[in-house]
């Protein structure tokens, strides 16, 4: 018998499934699992935060913040205290000892830290034109305390980081990031919107009208042409969306729109005294 060489069919060792189909299945499955874990953790932290007493929060805040950031600001503290006075007597927010601190920075932002410390960045303070705008911003931050957003964020960050580390042995797993970034941004934007509406209500109580509530966002909108796409993943909603929501809520609830009061001299003096040194330029 003569040997006849024959080409063997090499296909047995090559997978039949298309790699894109496999990728879709695996990535889809992983996304589903992560989404479920994310939702579960959101629910869990929401529940824990709801039952966590303010005293415990203050204790956590002190543990996290060894030193208070920035400098105390008497004029802002006065305005915050004024706002707190307008809260109902049984408001849980009355259990906090709120303090406002100013950090000299180019960021146009304010942050609510666990325990009752509100940090306002000096650039934001410089951008403000009226007392009403300032009160709206402080009331917005109080809104975060009312909904305990800062705690939810902190708790979820901790648990999710731990879970990610447990599964992947790495808390910065790049495969995980896209899902978390998108979900977190959506969640954060929803929180900001709720804090806006809560702040609006307090502003109405404080001044008897909601004039100046949207002025700051209006200027932000005019100053920078911020794309919708950029804001899909941002922590705050698009200024235009915020204005629309605030205006429609004010209209629905029948809040009057009154005249705004120009910003007090004490704030200007504070800025001149404490935050007058030039800061390095930044994107913000």
């Amino acid at each position, binding site marked *: 018998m003569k040997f006849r060489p024959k*080409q063997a069919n*090499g296909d047995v060792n090559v997978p039949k499934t298309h*790699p*894109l189909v496999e*990728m879709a299945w*695996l*990535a889809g499955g992983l996304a589903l699992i992560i989404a479920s874990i994310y939702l579960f953790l959101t629910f869990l932290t929401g529940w824990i935060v709801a039952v966590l007493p303010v005293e415990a929060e203050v204790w956590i805040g002190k543990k996290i913040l060894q030193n208070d950031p920035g400098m105390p600001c008497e004029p802002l503290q006065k305005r915050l205290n004024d706002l707190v006075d307008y809260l109902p007597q049984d408001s849980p927010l009355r259990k906090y000892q709120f303090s406002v601190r100013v950090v000299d920075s180019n960021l146009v932002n304010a942050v609510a830290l666990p325990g009752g410390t509100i940090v306002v960045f000096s650039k934001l303070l410089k951008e403000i034109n009226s007392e009403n705008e300032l009160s709206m911003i402080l009331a917005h931050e109080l809104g975060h305390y009312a909904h305990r957003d800062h705690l939810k964020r902190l708790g979820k960050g901790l648990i999710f980081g731990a879970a990610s580390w447990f599964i992947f042995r790495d808390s910065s797993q790049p*495969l995980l990031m896209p899902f978390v970034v998108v979900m977190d941004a959506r969640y954060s934007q929803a929180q900001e919107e709720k804090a806006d509406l809560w702040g609006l209500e307090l502003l109405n109580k404080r001044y008897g009208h909601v004039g100046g509530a949207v002025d700051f966002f209006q200027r932000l909108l005019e100053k920078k042409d911020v794309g919708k796409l950029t804001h899909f993943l941002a922590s705050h909603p698009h200024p235009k969306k915020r204005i629309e929501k605030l205006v429609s809520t004010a209209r629905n609830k029948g809040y009057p729109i009154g005249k705004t009061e120009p910003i007090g001299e004490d704030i200007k003096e504070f800025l001149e005294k404490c935050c007058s040194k030039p800061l390095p330029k930044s994107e913000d």
Partner: protein
Amino acid sequence: MSDFLLQNINLILPIFLLILGYTAGSIAERRHYRSIERREQEFLALPAVTLRDVESSEEVSGQLVIGNVVISIDYFKRALAILRNIFGGRVASYESLVDRARREAILRMKEEAAKAGAHIVVNMRIETSSIGQSANRKKQIGSVEAIAYGTALIKQV
């Protein structure tokens, strides 16, 4: 737009690398398979077998022939394998690499044998080397390596 790209670089870079890895990897794989199939047909008359003892009525001399190959994984295949590592099962994305590496190593060995004028390669063995043992580990380059070697029998005239 540039702002958006810069802000979300952590998100966009992996997606970009996935697309690049898939496109470049698929093109390279398809071309490689075409070349492998063509050359396998070419060397069909030069068999490579694993037999150790070959009896021959003619006088032959033996010569060691070696073929080796290193094929890198691409970003897409790696991502697919990482996902596979979570769920378990066949790491299909690496299987085609192993197949390519093995066939390419044999072909290169056959090429060398053909140059020496051999009519058959006996006692063929395939081994893997270990440059790419770190495959799948973070910040390490993964690759598949195969070495095929055997004894080329050349008829003495």
